[in-house]
């Protein structure tokens, strides 16, 4: 291609070809060489681009104004409902969050109902239940002024664990329910922002999605299984979590078959737990996930409550197909000794920071 081809009167067709991407890299180079040497042509070129930009910006803004006015009109006419998703003009990602949110609402109301029935059934025990409720407090650590100041100051911290290479972190709902912003930190001290992708308030489970395109945890299968059957009384268990700035290991045993408020889907464990350990995974001696810590009895260090893994499986299974979280599990840790198991597991444990 020779330069004589570029003349000002041909500029328009070149502009068109360039914008429609019908131009080769070589032609593109020659075109810009030509423009750089010919100021008159270059000015014309820039003016065309500027014109198009202004028009396209205006068009985007018009679409925004239209949306804004629709939302304004809708909120004026509509009496406030507890939940409303009136306009589904979302990007695919946002739509996914929306759908998960809706589905969790359904599971939430259902489980809320069953809880009511239980309360009714145990009416005589209500007082006790209330007492237990009072004595149980959530293991959410409050940051005092004295605490180490990080660039990102969090109000609460908890623990959680990842089940997917793209970052689906499971933790307690009470850790994140009041969050304005959520960050998760891996064992190497790297921070990622996250949002709540799904939750089940009654079972106190939230699934966080890491919202950072740079995040990828490299694994093909989880080294542990999500154990559907609960551990039996007296079975040994261990837990990994973030009560401190670094990961902490604790071990203990199943001490009771009922959780707090006689919850049959939870355990009482005899294991040390401290603020910050809410959402910490509980593993059996084979290294498989048998539960998640949710709270403990006040004024004790060892009486810890944990929900069964089954609750987590139920939430995962309740997600609509298009938002399903596909995880692959394995029982790799079965024949390893404890320190080897922990070594394998620690990269899956995250600290959850909330403000």
């Amino acid at each position, binding site marked *: 291609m020779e330069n004589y081809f570029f003349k000002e009167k041909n500029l*328009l*067709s070149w*502009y*068109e070809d360039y*914008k*429609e991407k019908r131009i080769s890299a070589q032609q593109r180079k020659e075109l810009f060489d030509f423009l750089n040497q010919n100021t008159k042509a270059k000015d*014309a070129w820039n*003016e*065309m681009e500027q*014109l*198009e930009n*202004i*028009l*396209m*910006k*205006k*068009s*985007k*803004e*018009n*679409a*925004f*104004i239209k*949306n*804004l*006015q*629709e*939302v*304004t009109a*809708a*909120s004026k006419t509509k009496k406030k409902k*507890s*939940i*409303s*998703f*009136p*306009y*589904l*003009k*979302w*990007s695919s990602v*946002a739509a996914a*969050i*929306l759908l998960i*949110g809706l589905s969790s*609402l359904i599971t*939430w109301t259902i489980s809320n109902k069953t809880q009511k029935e239980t309360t009714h059934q145990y009416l005589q025990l209500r007082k006790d239940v209330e007492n237990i409720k009072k004595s149980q407090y959530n293991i959410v650590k409050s940051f005092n002024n004295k605490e180490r100041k990080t660039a990102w100051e969090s109000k609460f911290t908890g623990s959680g664990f990842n089940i997917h290479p793209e970052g689906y972190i499971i933790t307690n709902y009470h850790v*994140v*329910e009041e*969050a*304005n*912003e*959520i960050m998760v930190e891996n064992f190497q001290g790297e921070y990622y*922002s996250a*949002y*709540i992708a799904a939750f089940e*308030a009654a079972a106190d489970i939230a699934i966080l999605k890491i*919202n950072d395109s740079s995040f990828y945890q490299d694994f093909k299968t989880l080294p542990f299984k999500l154990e559907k059957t609960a551990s039996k009384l007296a079975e040994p268990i261990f837990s990994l979590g973030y009560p401190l700035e670094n990961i902490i290991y604790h071990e203990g045993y199943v001490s009771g078959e009922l959780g707090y408020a006689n919850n049959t889907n939870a355990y009482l464990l005899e294991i040390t737990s401290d603020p910050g350990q809410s959402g910490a995974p509980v593993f059996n001696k084979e290294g498989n996930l048998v539960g998640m810590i949710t709270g403990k009895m006040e004024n004790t260090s060892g009486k810890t409550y944990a929900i069964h893994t089954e609750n987590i499986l139920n939430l995962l299974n309740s997600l609509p197909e298009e938002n399903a979280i596909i995880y692959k599990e394995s029982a790799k840790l079965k024949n390893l000794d404890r320190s080897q198991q922990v070594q394998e597991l620690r990269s899956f444990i995250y600290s959850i920071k909330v403000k």
Partner: protein
Amino acid sequence: MIENIYSDDQIIKGIAENSSEAINWVYNHIQPMIIKWIIAKGGQYEIAEDVFQEGMLVLFHQCQKEDFILTSKLSTYLLAICKRLWYKNLQQNKNIHLEEDISMYEFHDIDIGIKEKEEEEIAFNQINKALEQLGSPCKDLIKAFYLEEKNMIEIAELFNYSNANTAKTQRYKCMNRLRNIMKLNSRS
């Protein structure tokens, strides 16, 4: 009340993508506070609403920038935008001196954003004027494509071109004519 919890960054992203849910969120969580502030400063409800909507447009403009970073809570930022617009509105209409609060000077980028928006508006008005001079069918073709977001196949049908490619070539020709008119206008 069960509601999805979004971070400010997610809302910003939603605004940039013109998501109704994000706008709705801002409307439910931030708008009442801003309306209250303007009414407390002596504005009428209708005017307060207008200021909020204009503020949302400035926010939308800001979010479009690739290097936009929120340096405070979104509510603080949006209130700061609306404060500026409100004071501006007062100064233009009544020519009175106002005690401005210090928070007005915290976000330098807002002033730039408002100014850019004004400049864009002026540029667009110039284009509009030139479009009128351009006449049919070029005016209608450009409006259909850039402002009504019709695709080239629809436009080809609408304007009786044999196919989308012809319509496209026509569009570029019209744009070139528009450019020339604007050039003439700017000289006179």
